[in-house]
């Protein structure tokens, strides 16, 4: 009993250290006054000040946020449609292919996805003249494509767990299928849609490889800017930027959790 009692906390602490020590050190060093990343030179917020005056970083952050928001929304729309077809339409011709295709981006190496997207865009430009050149549009399309697979997985499990007689009941009461979808299905799977959107948003915000392939002049996302800066040596302002990103993501997760808790409490009360 005692051994088990000691073993668990030790492993737990080690696990957390392994996961979070790098992040903690990054946050700590973002307040480092020294220009050298590895030497502590006292507390300072000068890198944060420098960051908000850097037009390159701010521009990239704005592009990243736009790309993430638009591609997440597209991915939710497309992924939900795919999930709906796969869970509700029973066996149909080509179902196996659709299942495989919808899930393929989950396991496809990013390099391949990026490269094939690039080839597609180049070929399309040659054939139909759209998209003209590469830039934000192509990144959005590429991100929507691979994020869609994740959304489809999340939404599919929620749809499968939903009581189908809810949809039948709406139909029985005189609602046509499209109406049923928006009146009943969407509200019931709304948590999955929100979760899928957040997941897609994060994935898009994170992505470096695919964006690097399909981007063009003037459309550098935040990860691309960070990566190119780091190649010239890690500067403390990157630490500051990373800390801000962690704070924003952490705040988002906390808000989401709080919102969900509140919804659950409202459900149980009364």
């Amino acid at each position: 009993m005692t051994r088990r009692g000691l073993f668990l906390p030790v492993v737990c602490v080690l696990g957390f250290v392994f996961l979070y020590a790098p992040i903690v050190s990054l946050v700590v060093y973002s307040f480092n006054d020294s220009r050298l990343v590895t030497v502590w030179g006292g507390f300072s917020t000068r890198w944060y000040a420098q960051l908000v005056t850097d037009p390159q970083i701010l521009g990239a952050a704005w592009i990243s946020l736009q790309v993430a928001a638009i591609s997440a929304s597209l991915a939710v729309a497309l992924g939900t449609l795919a999930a709906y077809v796969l869970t509700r339409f029973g066996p149909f011709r080509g179902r196996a292919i659709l299942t495989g295709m919808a899930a393929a981006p989950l396991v496809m190496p990013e390099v391949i996805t990026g490269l094939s997207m690039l080839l597609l865009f180049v070929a399309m430009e040659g054939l139909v003249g759209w998209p003209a050149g590469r830039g934000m549009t192509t990144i959005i399309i590429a991100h929507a494509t691979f994020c869609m697979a994740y959304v489809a997985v999340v939404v599919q499990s929620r749809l499968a767990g939903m009581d189908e007689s809810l949809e039948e009941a709406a139909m029985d009461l005189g609602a046509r299928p499209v109406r049923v979808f928006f009146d009943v299905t969407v509200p019931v799977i709304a948590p999955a849609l929100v979760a899928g959107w957040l997941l897609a948003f994060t994935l898009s915000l994170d992505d470096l490889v695919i964006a690097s392939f399909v981007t063009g002049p003037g459309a550098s996302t935040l990860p691309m800017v960070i990566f190119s800066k780091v190649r010239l040596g890690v500067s403390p302002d990157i630490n500051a930027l990373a800390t801000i990103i962690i704070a924003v993501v952490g705040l988002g997760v906390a808000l989401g959790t709080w919102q969900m808790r509140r919804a659950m409490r409202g459900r149980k009360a009364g």
Partner: protein
Amino acid sequence: MPDTQTAAARRPWLDPTAQPFVRILNVTKKFGDFTAVWNVSLDIWKGELFGLLGGSGSGKSTLLRMIAGFETPTAGRIEIDGQDMTAVPPYERPTNMMFQSYALFPHMTVERNVAYGLLREGKSRAEAMERVAEMLKLVQLTPFAGRRPHQLSGGQRQRVALARALIKRPKLLLLDEPLGALDKKLREETQFELVKIQETLGITFIVVTHDQEEAMTLSSRIGVMNEGEIVQVGEPNEVYEFPHSRFVADFVGSVNIFEGRVIEDEPDYIRLASAEAGCDIHVGHGVACALNQTLWYAVRPEKLRLSRTDPGGAFNRVPGVVDEIAYLGNLSIFRVRLDSGKMVRATRANVARVDEEATSWGDRVWVSWTDTAGVVLPR
């Protein structure tokens, strides 16, 4: 003859000129290789409360879902009020359904749940709300109009589901195990409430249930289903007292069945020799059968008499030993092992507060029955 007049009006299936309201004609439903419903034909009249009774997998729910339009028959036709409904989608059918899970919309209040059907019909908000208020009054849910389904008890949810299914005044209401999720006491109350509502509104009901007691309490007629087929249709007492087959006899209520061989076949009686019973069985009416044919004799537990003394006679009486007694208050159930080894079940209403014979475990008793107590079954 005012009595026969009302009787005929209440029992249209006895009137050969009456037009059925729902006609199910040779309907078959297959899922791949599995046949869920096989060649079912059924007529249901206006104002009936028809019970579809069967075990799980008997096809009763599939049949109901075909009437609602959620499944398309593989073969056959379904007509409602003279119109062919086979290819009509559920949202255009004059039917509404109450689901086993109730299927209340979790994101809508009780009021909006009930109003949903009316709003889809294109009714104005004001008119819809007026009718919803009326309906909620009928099912006694007015104080709960603003609640969400998860804030209600099982019985309240059941009534919301009923209100929502009734609000469009459907020609035909389909109920899938409507009382399955309620506890026994509530179920009994709700059964009578359901019948009262059905009589008030005059809507035709089709109720699917696996509970034979529920089917008996609710229904004007019962259709018993087994393995996708309708095996018998009749009024509750018909199905109980005059089953067509061993399956129906056994499924509806409990029964003792003896296998026997015809040894006397006269116009006004037959006699069976039954090794299983351990005595001859005398049946007090003529039966279409042949000598030496194997038949089954089914007799309900409440029609068996237990006595400590030999009732006498040459048939319909057999000795045995009391193996088990279950005292249920209003009645007692005895399991008696006959000398042939067959176990029979007999019930006795506890009309007196003390059993004068004091029948107890291990006692030797005589089991007897009259010559009209049971039915002869050919299969």
